[in-house]
C-alpha cells in the first residue's frame, strides 16, 4: 500500500468532475478489456484536519445532536468523505464512481473526539467483491490523533450492473423480512432536507438537491442522504450510547422527500440501541442500524500491521436484531457519489510516496 500525503482535503466539486470523467473512460476501457480489475494500492492521507465550531454547530443542529464540544461520528465521516471520493475518482479505480450507491456504513469510535483536536485522516479502498446486482467495495477512512486511531469508518458502495471478469455472482442471502415494531418517534422531513444536509456535508449529489435532478438519475423525487438518516437515528439514541461504540447502518430503501418517517430507537440486550427508520404506511425499511458498545476484548496491538488491513466486517459481538444484509437484492442508494462540478483540485496533491507508518491499533476481530 502506497501512502500519498495530500496537502489538504480536496474539494468535492473537482472530485466529482474527475469521477465523471473516469466513469466515462472506464466504460470505454471495459469494452476493450483494458479496464482495471483491482483496487489501487494507494491510500490518501491529509494531516491536520480540524472541524470549525460553526461547522460543528450547524451539523449538530441539523441532525439533532446535543450541542456538545465533541465531534459526532457522522461529522468525522463528512470530514473524511472527500478523501474516499478522491480514491474513487482515480483513473485506476475499477468501479465507475458515477451512480455508485451507499449500501452500508460502519463506524468504530474509540473515544470522544474534541472539536479542537487535530485529525490525521487516511482513506483506502478494500474488499472489492461481488454483489448479486454488481460489485461492491469498502472505502475505509481512519481518523487519528497523534498516531492513535480514534475513529474508523467503513462505507460500502455498490456499482450496480458492473461485474468484474473474475466474479462469481453472489448468491441471495437468507434474511428475515423487516417487521416494523411500534414506533418510538417520527420525522417530518421537508422537501429541502437534502439541500440542507448538502450545505453542511458538502455532498451536493444532484439526487439530493431537487426533484428534477433526482429524476435525471432515475429517482421519482429528491432523496435524503443516507448518512443524514443514519446520523439522525444515532442522535435519537442519545448520550446513552457512550463515547466509544460501534455504529452500524444498512441502507435499504431511499427516503423520498418530503417524507414522514417512522422511527424506533430501543435499548438492546447487552447495551446499546437498535435503530430503525421506515415508511409508516408501507412498513418498508429505509435504514436499519445499531449502536453498540465496543467488543469486550480490547483490540489487538499489532505494530506490524498496516491500518488498511483492518477488519471491515460488522461487529460480531452483538449483531443488530433488525439488521438486514448489505447484499439485499434491489438495494437502492442511501447516497451515491456523482456530481460533475468545477475544476479538479486533486492535481495539487503532492506525489511523494511513502510507506505507511506502523499503527498501534488493529481491527476488532
Amino acid at each position: 500500500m502506497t501512502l500519498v500525503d495530500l496537502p489538504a482535503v480536496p474539494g468535492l466539486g473537482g472530485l466529482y468532475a474527475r469521477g465523471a470523467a473516469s466513469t466515462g473512460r472506464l466504460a470505454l476501457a471495459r469494452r476493450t478489456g483494458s479496464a482495471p480489475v483491482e483496487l489501487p494500492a494507494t491510500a490518501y492521507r491529509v494531516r491536520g484536519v480540524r472541524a470549525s465550531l460553526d461547522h460543528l454547530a450547524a451539523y449538530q443542529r441539523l441532525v439533532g445532536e446535543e450541542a456538545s464540544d465533541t465531534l459526532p461520528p457522522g461529522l468525522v465521516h463528512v470530514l473524511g468523505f472527500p478523501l474516499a471520493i478522491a480514491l474513487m475518482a482515480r483513473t485506476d479505480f475499477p468501479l465507475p464512481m458515477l451512480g455508485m450507491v451507499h449500501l452500508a456504513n460502519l463506524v468504530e469510535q474509540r473515544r470522544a473526539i474534541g472539536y479542537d483536536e487535530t485529525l490525521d485522516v487516511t482513506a483506502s479502498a478494500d474488499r472489492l467483491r461481488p454483489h448479486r446486482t454488481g460489485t461492491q467495495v469498502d472505502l475505509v477512512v481512519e481518523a487519528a490523533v497523534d498516531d492513535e486511531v480514534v475513529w474508523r469508518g467503513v462505507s460500502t458502495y455498490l456499482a450496480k450492473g458492473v461485474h468484474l471478469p473474475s466474479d462469481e455472482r453472489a448468491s441471495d442471502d437468507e434474511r428475515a423480512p423487516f417487521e416494523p415494531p411500534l414506533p418510538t418517534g417520527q420525522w417530518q422531513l421537508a422537501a429541502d432536507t437534502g439541500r440542507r444536509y448538502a450545505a453542511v456535508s458538502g455532498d451536493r449529489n444532484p439526487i439530493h438537491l431537487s426533484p428534477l435532478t433526482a429524476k435525471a438519475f432515475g429517482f421519482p423525487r429528491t432523496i435524503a442522504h443516507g448518512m443524514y438518516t443514519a446520523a439522525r437515528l444515532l442522535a435519537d439514541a442519545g448520550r446513552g450510547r457512550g463515547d466509544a461504540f460501534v455504529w452500524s447502518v444498512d441502507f435499504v430503501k431511499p427516503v423520498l422527500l418530503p417524507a414522514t418517517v417512522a422511527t424506533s430507537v430501543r435499548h438492546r440486550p447487552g447495551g446499546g440501541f437498535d435503530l430503525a427508520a421506515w415508511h409508516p404506511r408501507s412498513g418498508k425499511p429505509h435504514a436499519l442500524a445499531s449502536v453498540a458498545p465496543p467488543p469486550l476484548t480490547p483490540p489487538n496491538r499489532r505494530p506490524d500491521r498496516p491500518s488498511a488491513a483492518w477488519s471491515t466486517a460488522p461487529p460480531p459481538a452483538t449483531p443488530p436484531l433488525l439488521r438486514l444484509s448489505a447484499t439485499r437484492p434491489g438495494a437502492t442508494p442511501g447516497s451515491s457519489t456523482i456530481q460533475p462540478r468545477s475544476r479538479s483540485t486533486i492535481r495539487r496533491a503532492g506525489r511523494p510516496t511513502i510507506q505507511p507508518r506502523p499503527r498501534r491499533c488493529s481491527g476488532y476481530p
Partner: protein
Amino acid sequence: MALKNTATPSAPRRALVLGGNRIPFARSGGAYAHASNQDMLTAALEGLVARYGLQGERIGEVAAGAVLKHSRDFNLTREAVLGSSLDATTPAYDVQQACATGLETLVGLSNKIRLGQLESAIAGGVDSTSDAPIVVTDRLRRALLDLSRARTAGQKLAALGRIRPKDLAPVAPSTGEPRTHLSMGEHQALTTAQWGITREAQDELALASHQRLAAAWDAGFFDDLVTPYRGQTVDGNLRRDTSLEKLAGLKPTFGTRLDAPATMTAGNSTPLTDGASTVLLGSEEWAATRGLTPLAAVVDAEAGAVDFVHGEDGLLMAPVFAVPRLLARNGLTLADLEYVEIHEAFASTVLATLAAWESDEFGRTRLGLDGAFGTVDRARLNVHGSSLAAGHPFAATGGRIVATIAKELHLRKQRDGGTPRALVSICAAGGLGLTAILEAA
C-alpha cells in the same frame, strides 16, 4: 425497582387546602379567545380573593404557571398578583412542569408551609391555546439576531441572505414531543395499542366523565369553586347530551397509521382548552386566624418519569411507577383510598394506567412487587368527572382536581366521619408524572 415500606415522613405541621377558585374552562377559540394567560390567571386569583376576603392581604407566596407561555410573561404570576387586589407585597414565582405544573405549585407551596416558611399560599395554573404564543422560525430568529450583531454591510447581507421565504411562516406551539416528534395523541395511541385498550372502554370512560361532571354542576357542587368569566358560566366542553352511540360514531383521530385498530377519537381525548385555577393553602394557625374551614391536608407527593424516548414505556405512564412508590412510603394501598383522581389526558391513559396496575406480570417485572399493584374501584375514580368533560387547560388542571377533591373529602368526612384519603395523579409531557395524597382535614 424494589419498593420500601418506610414510615410516613414526619411533618412538623400540616399544610391545608382551604379552598379554591377557577374560571369555567372554555373550548379553544371560545369565550376566552381574546383573553391572555395573565388575564385568566388574574381573574381566577381575583375570584379567590373575593371568595375568601383576601383583599389587601399579604399572602406568603403565590406560585402558578402556564405551559404555553410567551417569553414576555417571565413573571406571569407576579403580574397576576399585581393585577389582583392582594397586597402588592405578596411575593410570587412561576413554575413550569408541563401538565403537572398546577399540582407542582401545590406540592412546593405545601412543603414550605409544612417547614414553617410560609403561613399562607396560593397555588395556581393557567393555559390558553387560543392566545398561544406564536413565534418565528428558528432559522429566521437566528438570522435576525446575527443581523442585529452584524457590523459591516457584508455581514448584514450574509445574514439577510440566509433567510428563505419558508422561514417567514409563523410557528405555533404544538403538543409534539421535541425528541420523538410524535404528538401526545400519537404517543398515547402507541400505549393504547400496547395495552390493548378497546374503543368501547374508552367511550364508556368518556361518557362517565361527562355524566359525573354534569351531575356535579347540577347539584351546585361547583358553586363555591368556580367564578364565571367573560360570559362562560359552566365548563364549555361539557356535553350533557352525549351518549355511547354518539361517541361511537366519531372517527378515530390518533393511531390511524398503526397496525392496531385506531380507537382514540375527539370524544375520548381531551380537547384544547382555555382556563385558569387557583387553590388557597395555609397552616392550621393561619386558617384559624382567618376563620377559614380546612378542607384537606396535603399529605405527600411523588414525581416520576419514564424513558418513552427509547420506547421503554408510554409517554404518559409515569404515574404508574410514581403511585406505588408514593403509597408504599405512606404505608397505604389502593384499597386505603376513598378517591382516586387520575387526570384524563385521554380515556386510554386512565385505562392503561389501571391495566398496568392490574397486571400481575407488570407488577412483578416493572414495579418490583410480588404481583399486581391493585385494582381501582371505578366508583371511586374521578367521581365528579375529569378532564375529558371539563377540558384540560394544561397548567390549570392540577388546581381544578385538587380543589374539587379537597371539597369532596371534606364533605365525605362531615357525612361519614373518619379521615378519607384521595390520590391525585397527573401525567405530563416529557414522560413526566406527578402524584399526591390528600386527606380530609
